[in-house]
């Protein structure tokens, strides 16, 4: 084919990648996030100091070559603790986001397709969840269920499941409303009608024609959910109701650091920086993804 190759032809994913690269802030964020994720995943393989080695001679010591991020009040190495805790904080963020998006998309899609009474009931439930005071309820639920779940699946896994489920179940409402609104407008679109005229089933209409068109805002909402979940976990840990004290999640590190802010600011700054960088870069990443995945937008 002797077509004047104005631009190289690429598949849809290549096209998305091309668009994504033009969003400079998103690319930088992706790199930062990748470094953070890679750091907490493979970092401990290279930085082999144990997270719980107590060394009173290095108590509250600032950054040094032996301990780049300093030590806490027991002389434990903060870099090792941040990397270990990051695994859990990030895992909580992604898992809680998955729970929130799954529930939100399901509720929103059902409400948006069904309309009528079912829609009214589902939106009533959504509003109910939105109007609940989240933090007190989170604390109450964790307080009530932590011990019983601990006995069944062990302290770490039990608290992880509990926290992920609860944070997820308190963050699906925005996604549900978003998806419902998108469905209401999309299901009246001519291309949905046209697909129906071509013999597409209801399921196919939803999964292939309506949902992909609703995905842009959902991706952005999902990234915000990750950030919100990380912050929620940090908040819980900071309040002492998250993971057990021997698991140094980022929030837990802040909690432990708060009494020594005057003498050892580094103890709070580094975990705080980790939370901040993660949340900010995830949000920018969401922006970039939305632009990249929308073929209507010309970049």
């Amino acid at each position, binding site marked *: 084919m002797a077509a004047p190759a104005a631009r190289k032809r690429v598949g849809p994913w290549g096209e998305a990648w091309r668009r994504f690269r033009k969003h400079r802030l998103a690319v930088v964020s992706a790199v930062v996030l990748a470094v953070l994720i890679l750091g907490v995943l493979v970092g401990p393989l290279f930085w082999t100091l144990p997270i719980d080695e107590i060394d009173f001679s290095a108590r509250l010591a600032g950054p040094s070559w032996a301990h780049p991020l300093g030590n806490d009040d027991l002389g434990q190495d903060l870099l090792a603790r941040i990397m270990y805790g990051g695994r859990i904080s990030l895992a909580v963020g992604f898992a809680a986001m998955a729970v929130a998006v799954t529930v939100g998309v399901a509720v929103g899609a059902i409400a948006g397709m069904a309309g009528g009474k079912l829609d009214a009931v589902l939106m009533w439930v959504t509003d109910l969840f939105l109007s609940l005071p989240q933090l007190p309820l989170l604390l109450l639920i964790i307080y009530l269920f932590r011990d019983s779940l601990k006995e069944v699946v062990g302290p770490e896994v039990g608290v992880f499941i509990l926290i992920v489920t609860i944070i997820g179940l308190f963050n699906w409402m925005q996604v549900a409303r978003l998806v419902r609104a998108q469905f209401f407008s999309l299901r009246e679109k001519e*291309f949905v009608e046209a*697909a129906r*005229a071509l*013999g597409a089933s209801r399921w*196919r209409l939803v999964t292939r024609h309506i949902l992909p068109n609703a995905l842009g805002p959902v991706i952005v909402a999902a990234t915000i959910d990750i950030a919100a979940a990380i912050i929620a976990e940090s908040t819980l840990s900071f309040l002492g109701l998250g993971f057990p004290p021997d698991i140094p999640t980022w929030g837990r590190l802040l909690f432990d650091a708060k009494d020594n802010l005057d003498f050892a600011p580094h103890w709070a700054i580094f975990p705080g920086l980790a939370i901040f960088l993660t949340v900010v870069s995830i949000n920018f990443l969401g922006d970039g993804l939305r632009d990249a995945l929308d073929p*209507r937008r010309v970049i």
Partner: protein
Amino acid sequence: MSAATMAAAAPPPAAAAGPRLLEIAGLKVHFRTDDGWVRAVDGVDIGVDRGETLCVVGESGCGKTVTAMTILKLIAMPPGKIVAGSILWQGRDLVPLGPDQMRAIRAKEIGFVFQEPMTSLNPVYTVGEQIAEAVRQHEGLSRRAARDRAAEMLRLVNIPNPQRRVDDYPHQFSGGMRQRVMIAMALSCNPKLLIADEPTTALDVTIQAQILDLMQEMKERLGMAVLLITHAMGVVAETAQRVVVMYAGQVVEEAPVEALFGRPMHPYTQGLIRSIPRLDLAATEHRRLEAIPGTVPSLLNPPAGCRFAARCRHAIPACSAAPPPLREVTPGHLAACIRAEEIS
């Protein structure tokens, strides 16, 4: 109307053998609103034979689109409801069929082209994927075979460079090109009937002619029948073999195209033809374009007699007494007017 009378008027080759391709009889489709039931389609009989082009013409709100959408059950039910009548597709009634059975008929047996090409394609898939979708569903082709079929369909509807264009997204096509893609989608499973609901209304005049030519070409090549919904008498004259004129949810006249333009029998049809803008007359006589006075009656509570009586220059008291039946005035030419003979 029987198949025999049709055969007399314009003998289609297959009319004598078996049931007609499509036979709508006494169809009534009503919509529930807060004010009551709107009788959008109120007793419509339309028949389509194999290989012919039938135009359904009428002004906005006369029920032509609802009739077309009802054939494939594309209207929303509720609020819509098929109150009475039958839609015989090759002798089989579509009215009682469930959603799954209807899906097997859509695209595979009856293709549908919508009015609005700019928004009838899904923006997140390539046109190739969208054409292939119907083929894969109905014929179970593999992804690769379906893509080849899609490219072949694009070539069929005269899109240059189909192998390349098949991977383009809808926003990379112009309006006329998109309507070609829509036609390609509707034809991808070789339907026996193509229903086109005002396929050219949203397009430029030059593109309109191209699309009409394309549909004509496709019809001849694939040997299918076309049911063309339009409000443009020019489109009717250009494409139709037979014409059905609808007014206020009912058929008021049905005739072969020459007979309809040569000797229109219903006053509404006469008004429609008089209101076609004519450059030759306008230039010489400084005439104003003729319009039909008045407005369409409310379909919530239509008048008891002839629904056109209030706007009709030939109306007599008897017109408002009882609804005029659709009757065969001359062979093959039906009109729902009690004075059809005197006024035509």
